[in-house]
């Protein structure tokens, strides 16, 4: 099968944009992507558009991909909405990769878009509690903060993970987000402030949770062979893996492991012919602080149960030996659900090429990075390995 590369990547600003529709947000990302293609972007070459989207409050569930594609000047393509909850964008990217690998299309757009602030807070909760096990988890009175809290409580019990470990994830990611001109929260926070935030679902407080965000992202995928027609520095998709799991946490083999992450990572490492030690930088799915700690363990960055100490030793700081969420992550950069996965790819494309928008956030000399995107509380997971 053909090798695949990313030759352009763009992202809208992430945040709350009352003046922008879903179409306009997608246009912003798409134009940013077009600008990033070194030898010029020609929309006539695009054969397919895979667009990640959860639901946008239900206002355009049907034909969403065709809608945003035609708005940006791509009518008549193989347009598909890809939905796997918060992992929709990551699955859009690997679906684009599979398409190009199989030789169906040569140039494919992968993207994502979400507009979460147009609907009321109450309606948002109806539309966001949709990706867990509705019949049991929802009806026990939980939303996603509660589900990740169940995981966090057990992780603290089994491995001695602390309140401080959780809050340090938020502090680290806000520090990076402060250096990201496209992040939703471009400000730092202190450990004290993060530890004392109001409780949402104990042990998780407000600063353990990501926000609701508007945003879009777009990535241009082609074969490795054709990549040089677009740029001298393509970013290759070396490997990817995906795995689903039981939706309800109570059905899973272990409460403190996302089995989907473990299995998706195994596949991605195998396809890339690398191991966790070869990953120099990563964007992981920190929808809640505990989720970033789980990711360290389940991706093999550290031993099971050791994520807290691993974080506190500074490995994943932007100055560490394996920076995680240099973008600010879902926590500070924002989490516009359908866009998150391809938004991670946007960050990694520029990190690996060394042309991040703001040089203070640029990690120097990195050649291989990993993307980790989780749907719901782990019902779907996609892991991608990218390299220069």
């Amino acid at each position, binding site marked *: 099968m053909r090798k695949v590369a990313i030759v352009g990547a763009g992202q809208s600003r992430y945040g709350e944009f009352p003046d922008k529709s879903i179409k306009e947000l997608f246009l912003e990302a798409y134009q940013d992507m077009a600008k990033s293609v070194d030898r010029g972007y020609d929309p006539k070459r695009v054969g397919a558009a895979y667009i990640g989207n959860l639901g946008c409050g239900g206002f355009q569930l049907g034909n969403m991909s065709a809608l945003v594609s035609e708005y940006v000047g791509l009518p008549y393509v193989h347009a598909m909405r890809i939905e796997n909850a918060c992992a929709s964008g990551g699955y859009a990217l690997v679906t684009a990769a599979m398409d190009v690998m199989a030789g169906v299309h040569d140039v494919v757009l992968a993207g994502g878009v979400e507009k979460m602030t147009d609907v009321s807070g109450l309606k948002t909760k109806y539309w966001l*509690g949709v990706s867990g096990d509705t*019949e049991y988890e929802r009806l026990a*009175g939980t939303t996603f903060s509660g589900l990740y809290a169940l995981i966090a409580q057990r992780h603290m*019990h089994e491995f001695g993970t602390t309140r401080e470990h959780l809050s340090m994830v938020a502090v680290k990611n806000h520090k990076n987000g402060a250096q990201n001109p496209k992040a939703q929260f471009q400000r730092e926070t202190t450990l004290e402030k993060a530890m004392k935030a109001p409780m*949402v679902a*104990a042990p998780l407080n407000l600063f353990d949770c990501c926000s609701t965000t508007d945003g879009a992202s777009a990535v241009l995928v082609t074969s490795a062979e054709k990549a040089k027609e677009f740029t001298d520095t393509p970013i290759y998709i070396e490997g990817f893996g995906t795995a689903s799991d039981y939706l309800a946490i*109570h*059905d899973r083999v272990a409460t403190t492991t996302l089995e989907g992450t473990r299995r998706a990572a195994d596949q991605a490492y195998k396809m890339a012919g690398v191991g966790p030690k070869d990953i120099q930088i990563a964007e992981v799915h920190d929808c809640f602080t505990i989720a970033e700690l789980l990711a360290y363990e389940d991706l093999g960055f550290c031993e099971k149960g050791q994520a807290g100490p691993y974080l506190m030793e500074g490995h994943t700081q932007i100055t560490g030996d394996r920076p995680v969420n240099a973008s600010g992550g879902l926590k500070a950069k924002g989490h516009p659900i359908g866009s998150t996965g391809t938004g991670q790819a946007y960050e990694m494309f520029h990190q690996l090429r060394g042309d991040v928008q703001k040089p203070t956030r640029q990690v120097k000399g990195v050649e291989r990075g990993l993307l980790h995107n989780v749907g719901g509380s782990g019902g779907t997971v996609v892991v991608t390995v990218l390299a220069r």
Partner: protein
Amino acid sequence: MAHVSVPMYWRTIPQRYRLVGMQCKKCGKVNFPPKGVCKYCNASSEFAEVRLSGKGKVHTFTLIGAGGAPPEFAEQEKAGGVYPVTIVELEEGPKVIGQMADVNPKDVTIGMPVRAELRRIYEEEGVVRYGFKFVPLEGGA
């Protein structure tokens, strides 16, 4: 939208009212809530109904506060304050999620012995929905 209609709820009443589990005729393990294919042996769709005791131990828990409750439970949170949600490991093996009642949220701990009781869960579309909640087991383990 994450909304459970009355017919959807009605179909799960054996589980919610009486904790009816499905014992796999091939491997003997109890699936609760039910699966189409036994999740333990992955090799059989033939089950016998068994009624679970409802007794078990708290495997993990969370205390849901303002902002953490789904809209159907916002009223409960507003009226009664923080409420505990647990995953209980039942004595027959399966784990299941459920709210806890008759307990000070501060006193909930992992390993705590509990039993299931039929309680009011919430009200929607003018229909009161009943189901199991866990309460502390008198006399402990």
